[in-house]
C-alpha cells in the first residue's frame, strides 16, 4: 500500500467510523449531535494533519501576515492529536446508543483499521511492516468476537449480570495479553 493510499484509506475509515457510530442519530439522545460534530471535526482535521505531513512549513516573512497565520494554523493542526480525539468521540457516540453488540464489534474492527492506516500514512511505511503484528491483531479480533458474542447472549437475571459479563470480557483480554510469548 503506498503512502497516498494509506492516507486515503485512513480518511475513508474515519468517515466510515463516524457515520457508523452515528446512525441512527435519533438514538443517541440530546448529546448525539454535539458528539457527532466533535467526531467529524476530529476526523477532518486528522486527515488534514496526515496531508500536511511532519515537516514544518517554510517560514513566512515578517511582512507576510497571511503566511504567518497559515503557518500558525498548520502548526496547530500538527500539534493536536486529532485521531485520539476522534476515537474517544466515536466510542462515546456509540455508547450513547442502545446496546447493539454486532454493530459495536464492527466499529471496533474499523477503528483498529483506521489507527493502523493512520500509522502507515504518518510513518510513510508500507503495509508489510504490519506483518509481525498480524497474529496479535487476529487474536485481538478473536477476543472482540467473543466479547460481542457474550454481549449478544440473552441477559441474565439480576442487575449484576451485565457487570459480570464485562468482567469476564476484561479477564479474557488480560489473560490473552499475559499469554503472549515474550
Amino acid at each position, binding site marked *: 500500500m503506498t503512502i497516498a493510499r494509506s492516507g486515503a484509506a485512513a480518511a475513508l475509515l474515519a468517515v466510515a467510523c463516524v457515520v457508523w457510530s452515528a446512525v441512527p442519530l435519533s438514538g443517541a439522545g440530546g448529546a448525539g449531535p454535539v458528539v457527532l460534530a466533535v467526531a467529524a471535526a476530529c476526523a477532518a482535521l486528522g486527515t488534514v494533519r496526515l496531508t500536511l505531513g511532519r515537516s514544518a512549513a517554510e517560514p513566512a516573512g515578517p511582512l507576510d501576515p497571511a503566511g504567518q497565520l497559515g503557518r500558525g494554523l498548520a502548526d496547530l493542526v500538527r500539534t493536536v492529536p486529532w485521531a485520539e480525539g476522534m476515537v474517544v468521540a466515536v466510542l462515546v457516540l456509540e455508547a450513547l446508543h442502545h446496546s447493539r453488540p454486532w454493530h459495536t464489534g464492527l466499529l471496533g474492527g474499523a477503528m483498529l483499521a483506521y489507527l493502523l492506516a493512520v500509522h502507515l500514512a504518518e510513518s510513510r511505511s508500507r503495509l508489510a511492516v504490519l506483518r509481525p503484528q498480524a497474529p496479535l491483531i487476529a487474536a485481538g479480533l478473536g477476543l472482540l468476537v467473543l466479547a460481542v458474542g457474550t*454481549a449478544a447472549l440473552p441477559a441474565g437475571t439480576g442487575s449484576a449480570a451485565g457487570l459480570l459479563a464485562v468482567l469476564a*470480557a476484561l479477564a479474557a483480554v488480560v489473560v490473552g495479553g499475559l499469554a503472549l510469548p515474550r
Partner: protein
Amino acid sequence: MTAGTPRERADQTGPAARQVRLHWSVSAHALRLTTLALAALIIAVITKRPEFAGVAAPAVLLLAARRPWRPATVGLSVRPSGRIVTEDEEADLAVSVTGYGEHTADLLVHPRYAIVPGPGASLRAGQASRLPFHVARSGRRSVGVLEVTLRDRLRLTEGRASVDLPVIDCYPRPAPQQTRVVLSRLPSRLGEHPSRSAGEGLEFTGVREFVPGDRQRRINWPATTRRGRLQLNTFAAERTQNVVIIADTTSDVGEPGSTPVDLALRGSAAAARAYLAVRDRVGFVLYQHGLQWTPPGLGLRHYYRIMDLMLGATGTRGLAAPASDITRLPRAALPPGSLILVFSPLLDRRLVETLRDLRERGFAMLIIDVLNAEPPGGRDGLSRLARRIWRMEQQAIRFSLRELGIPLVRWDGEQSLDEPLAPYTRRVMVIHR
C-alpha cells in the same frame, strides 16, 4: 569539459561510521492504541457493555506484546556521492546504519536552503541506502540534517537521532553556448580565431602573385594556368584572444533560482567554458561586496579555478565594493585589448559608471543584461507610477551605454546564450577605440 570531472577529483573517502545516541519515546501509534484501549474499557465498565471490552482487546494485546530491548546507540556513516555537484545534478548520500537488531530504521533528510531531497528510505538490518537529492542554487551549501528513526517490530517505541550532513560545493549550471564573440583585432598570440592578417592558418583568404621565398606547396595551379604567372594561396593567421568575464552579483532580487545572480553565474560559466574550449585566455572578475578576480588563463584547471571563485558569490545584500576597483585591477587581470563580457542587471550605479570608464579607455565590451525582476508593489496609481519611473530609469541607463558604443543584449536565462549574442557572433566584432 564536463561536470563529472570534479567529482573524480573530489575526496571520495567519507567519514567512518560513528556512534549516535538515540532518544527513545513511545510512538504516536502506541499512544493512539492506548487511547482506544482505555476509552473502550472505561466505557465498558461504566455502561456494563462487554462488547466495548472486546473493542479494547486488539489494542491491549498489541500493547502487551512490547519487547523492552532497544539499542542505546547505533553506528551511522554518511557519505555524499561527490563533494562537488552542478546545479540540478542528481546526487545522493550513501547512508549505512549498524547495530539496530530487529528494528527498522527510517531515514529522512531535513533539507537546508536550496537543497531538494528525494524520498526517504527504510532499512532492515544489514542494509545500506542511497538518499537522492539535488541542489537548486549554486554556492557552498549544507545539505541539512539526517533524521534516523528506529522502530521496533510492533512500532510501539521510536528511537530518534539527528546528524548534520556534510557541506558540498555546487557549481552553477553553464547555460548552453556554442558560438563566441571574436574581436576584429587580436593580440599576436597563436590561437584558433582567424584574424585579418595573413598567416599560417587554415582559412583561405585569397590569391596573390608568387614572390621568391614563398612556399611552393601553396601555389594555386588553376589560377596560375589562367593568369600565366605563378599564383599563391594566402591564409588567415590564427590568433587567440583575451576574454575577461565580469559577473555582477550585487543584486539578488526576484525568484530564487532565477535571480540576476543565478543568471550572471550561469552565463559566466557558459562563457568561460565556451572560450576556454577554443584555447582563449579567460579571466574572471566577481563583483559583489568584495571584489574577487583571477587573471586570464588557459585550460581545464583554470575553468575550475573560475568555478571555485563563483562559489563565493553569495548574493548577499550589503555594501558593494567600490566599482572603481575594477579599473584599478592590475594589467595582468585586465589586459589591454581584451574582450570584456559583463553579466549584470545594471542596478548598481557605480558599476555602470565603471563600465563607461572602461569603454572610454578603449576596452572592447559587451554587456549581457540579466535583469528579470521588477520592484514589487501594489496596483494603486502611486505604485504603478513608481514602477514606470523605475523602468524609464533602467531604459535611460541602457540607452546611455549604447550611445557610448557598448553593445548590450538581454538574456532571460531560459534560452541559449547563442540567441542574444547572434548579432555579434556571426562576424567579428569591430570596436572603435
